[in-house]
């Protein structure tokens, strides 16, 4: 469903992604893990078609992100770190606008709106102005705008940030249920969240892929746990930096 090949992204002299390759089949929930600045958000921005690459290619449903962006964008729902919300609009009005923008057929609007109202816990808030909502509810509207047009690929950049524990459980359930018809990429800093929602874990560090395993491998006892693997990767990174610093001295 999603093919990422040798993806490289430079910000000036800083290399955010270093020939990253990934293949994500349909129906998979992929958890993207890594320390701050590892390149998670950059990867997601590129896959959603928001940002260009320095080199490499991304294709969704065999459409190249850069050659046929409109086809790709129809198939993708994206929740960035800061949810894109028009604070002056009402929730329902906003979601309707997203449906129109994403070319959803008119006769599906009301069905999809009630679906997200139900599953994102927005039933009582549909008529409210977004600016008057609390952070948690805004995050839910952000999730709603990513899935309201029923896209084949859904990209969540830290979807449960700012939610209370009950909401987090609900949203995790929602993400799991999406796996049936959608392909999901999600990034998070909460390690247990990955085990609970994802079927596959990919760790990236300094723009490189460092681990790619199914969640079952982590939960079974014969291998190292997710947390240990993560810490090992990050500490290797720190050790590497120290060696470099010594070398510089």
């Amino acid at each position, binding site marked *: 469903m999603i093919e990422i090949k040798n993806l490289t992204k430079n910000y000036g002299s800083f290399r955010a992604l270093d020939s990253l390759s990934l293949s994500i089949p349909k129906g998979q929930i992929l958890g993207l893990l890594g320390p701050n600045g590892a390149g998670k958000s950059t990867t997601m921005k590129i896959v959603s*078609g*928001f940002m260009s690459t320095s080199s490499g290619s991304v294709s969704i449903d065999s459409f190249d992100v850069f050659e046929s962006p409109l086809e790709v964008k129809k198939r993708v729902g994206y929740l960035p770190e800061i949810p*894109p*919300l028009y604070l*002056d609009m009402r929730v329902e009005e906003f979601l309707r*606008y*997203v449906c129109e923008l994403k*070319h959803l057929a008119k006769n599906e609007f009301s069905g999809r709106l009630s679906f997200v109202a139900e599953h994102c816990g927005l039933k009582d808030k549909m008529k409210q102005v977004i600016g008057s909502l609390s952070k948690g509810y805004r995050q839910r509207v952000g999730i709603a705008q990513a899935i309201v047009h029923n896209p084949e690929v859904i990209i969540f950049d830290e979807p449960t940030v700012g939610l209370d524990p009950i909401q987090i459980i609900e949203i995790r359930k929602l993400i799991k249920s999406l796996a049936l018809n959608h392909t999901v990429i999600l990034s998070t800093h909460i390690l247990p969240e990955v085990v609970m929602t994802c079927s596959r874990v990919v760790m990236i560090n300094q723009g490189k892929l460092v681990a790619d395993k199914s969640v079952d491998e982590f939960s079974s006892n014969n291998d190292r746990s997710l947390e240990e693997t993560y810490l090992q990767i990050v500490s290797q990174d720190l050790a590497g930096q120290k060696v470099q610093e010594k070398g510089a001295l």
Partner: protein
Amino acid sequence: MFLKNIFCVWKKELKSYFYTPLASVFIGVFIVAMGYMFYSFLRLYLMLTQGGPYGMPQEIGIDRLAESFYANMNVIFLFVLPFFSMGLFTEELRKNTLVLLMTSPIRNWEITLAKYLSALSILSIMLLLSLVFPAFLVLYSEGGAAGGPDLGIIFTSYLGLFLNGAMFLAIGLFWSALLRSQLMALIFTFASNFGLWMMSSSAQGAGGQGAADSANMLQHFQNFLQGSLELKSLVFFLSIIFFALFLSNKVLESRAWRS
């Protein structure tokens, strides 16, 4: 398909002008201010043409009244229109909503054009409301329509006002795409509009020669007010509008490499 995209964004943009009372207030103040100006000009005109304590009656056509009225309206536009263009893109950046537009199946130029059209719609609303003033002249002139203003000149005046206003908005759209804050966009739009204004004044000082004369915004606008449709004046406004829209679109495209 692109008409549907443009319509969708245009509709939303136009609506969003009225989420806060700002636009309504500006339009209201504009009409009231123009009303007062119209009243003052009309009084002055009647005083001059009918004579009285200030001297003998003078022969002044009513078209001169309309001309100075519209020249002043254009000055008001210079100050009011930047408020309608300042937020077009800066707000999308500030609220991070540009991401939504740029990850939707809509081309960059469709976004640019839809936003520009929504600002033009506001300009059109203002111009339509201001039709009450020439209507007044036509209805109440002595001898009915025959003694009233030349409707051809009124038409070209409105065309000139629309083009000049559209140019102010296009320049405003460009600054709004380039800069990150509404206030900065507002200031730069004012500055550019003033720059064009000053250039015109200095060109008039130079006696209407050479390149400065071709870029003389006031002179081009004046042509419309005097009822002459000159190709070079049309080209002047349309080319600046086109160039500003082109640049705005380039800035928007470059966001994919910068953010």
